[in-house]
């Protein structure tokens, strides 16, 4: 089965490697891969992947990553989850 995913990443060190590594290790073969880093603090990674495993499972596994801000799985027409319940830091002045 082919799944298409849009993954919103924080622009922090290792975020891309972490996401791509997870996709492959969890048993999804990457067919196409496109990164758009046009915002200062976040990038969008667009993937099509192939696997016998369900896309929804990969989506949930990606959502666990701290530097993943949101994942949209195309087939499922789910809303774009922008704010997962992640801690974030604000430094006081």
């Amino acid at each position, binding site marked *: 089965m082919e799944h298409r995913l849009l993954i919103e990443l924080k622009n922090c060190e290792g975020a891309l490697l972490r996401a791509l590594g997870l996709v492959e290790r969890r048993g999804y073969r990457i067919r196409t891969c496109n990164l758009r880093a046009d915002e200062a603090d976040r990038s969008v990674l667009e993937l099509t992947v192939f696997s016998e495993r369900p896309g929804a*499972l990969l989506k949930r596994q990606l959502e666990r990553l701290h530097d993943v801000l949101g994942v949209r799985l195309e087939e499922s027409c789910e809303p774009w989850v922008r704010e997962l*319940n992640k*801690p974030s*830091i*604000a430094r*006081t002045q």
Partner: protein
Amino acid sequence: MSARPEAAISVRSGAQLMIDALLGQGVRHVFGYPGGAIMPLYDALVDSGLEHILCRHEQGAALAADAYGRVTRRAGVCIATSGPGATNLVTGIANAFMDSVPMVVITGQVATALQGTDAFQEVDIFGITLPVVKHSYVVREAADIPAIVAEAFQLAEQGRPGPVLIDFPKNVSTAMVPAPPAPRLTARQAPQPEAAAIAAARDMLAQARRPLLLAGGGVAIANAEEALRRFAADSRIPVVTTLKGLGVVPTDEPAFLGMLGMHGNAAANHAVQNCDLLMVVGARFDDRATGQLDHFAPTARIIHVDIDAAEISKLRQADAGVAGELAPALDGLLGATEVDARWRAQCGAWKQEFAWRYDAPGEGIFAPALLRDLSRMGGEDMVITCDVGQHQMWVAQHCAFSDPLQHLSSGGLGTMGFGLPAAIGVKVARPAARAVCVTGDGSIMMNIQELATLRRYGLDVKIVLLDNAALGLVRQWQELFFDENYSEVDLSDNPDFAAVARAFGVAARTISQRDEVDSGLEWLLGAEGPAMLHVLIDPRENVWPLVPPGKANHQMIKAS
């Protein structure tokens, strides 16, 4: 000279900021081993108020920090230098990852200008550990340290816990910067179970005729034992556990049927195979627990309760998935069912039929009976840390636990060498606990250098070394599934372990006969300071029962 206004702002090195940040998190103990790239941190450590435990191998430090994290439910901290120091930590990091243990790992790194040049002792530990950390950082600016450390602890400890790595380049640790203000973390709300999911689970519970509760290690991690016990008492559902779930309900609880899985109790496996509803709480369908997945709990609908939504329906489709905090989920299910008396009677009958037997023939020491006795004599303060092998399975089968934190075992990774460093972590975290490491003659050699750590810190750890002169569990598999083609499992040329222990300053005794067990255990538990009871057992002994590889859990085989 009049003081200039800036002088009021304190200037700290990156290393000092790291120590400040650790202290700010309430850290009291760190486990580690020094070396080149981490020297600035070791410099700042002196008289800092942090107590550093010098282990004798970085793997020992990481595994000790793992156990410290398990029993305190706060991140254990380990520290190593770059290169080989960092790579030596990897097994311990992976161990914590697989068992969802909170840990913060600090590794020295070569200076940023040298990174990527194959500098002396440079390895990409950030890259090496990506698959086995919950998150990781390379510190690029000293001013970021307070924020990174605060976030690292939060990530390590909250939700489903795990290890977080902080790679700390040398130039950043020596950089002098104005102390940045304390970071403000936005509080993270624990995910609450959804009402609709609870309602669906309640419906399924109400309809079930043969429900069964499967409790995993997640219950202890979430500190949800009480809620689980409340639910079990209220519903009267029979309970089985995974290896890591042992102790979530007391072993002597009548409704407890035992551990399921490959070396589980037959009663537990039969109950799983015959139930019509399996409610899985804080467990993840590991293959050692399920046997052949297609045939696992074949007649059951599944309720899966876990804090990690990604575990639900990962391996077995859940009919009701409840993602969120365990305790409120369990409380939300109170009163949903009252179990049929016939099903309880059937489970009780299995429990009786498959109760462990200790009447082994012969004069040699029967390890299961020895472990049962140890568990009786050790009492409620005892914490058993296990290594990996037959002895580990015997502990799981034959020791009784009234609390899951009484039993620390390397479940997910199955790390030989876990036991001794883990006992160190336990004893440092909880000096009043009676820490007993049950190990094998293969496993003890993986981290035997930590005997020196026991001696150095006077850690009162007791070791029961079950010596079958073999890599017993592997030997058993070769006997049963590889036509007795024994390959590299003989350890009959082991050193004299009692002499080795004494050389490290650890008292030791060797026993080999059944009538020496009582006095041997009494001596061990009464000995002052660290001590080892070296127990010679029959190399041909196997762990029974056993689900053969590729078989379903009801196809267990027994001793012939």
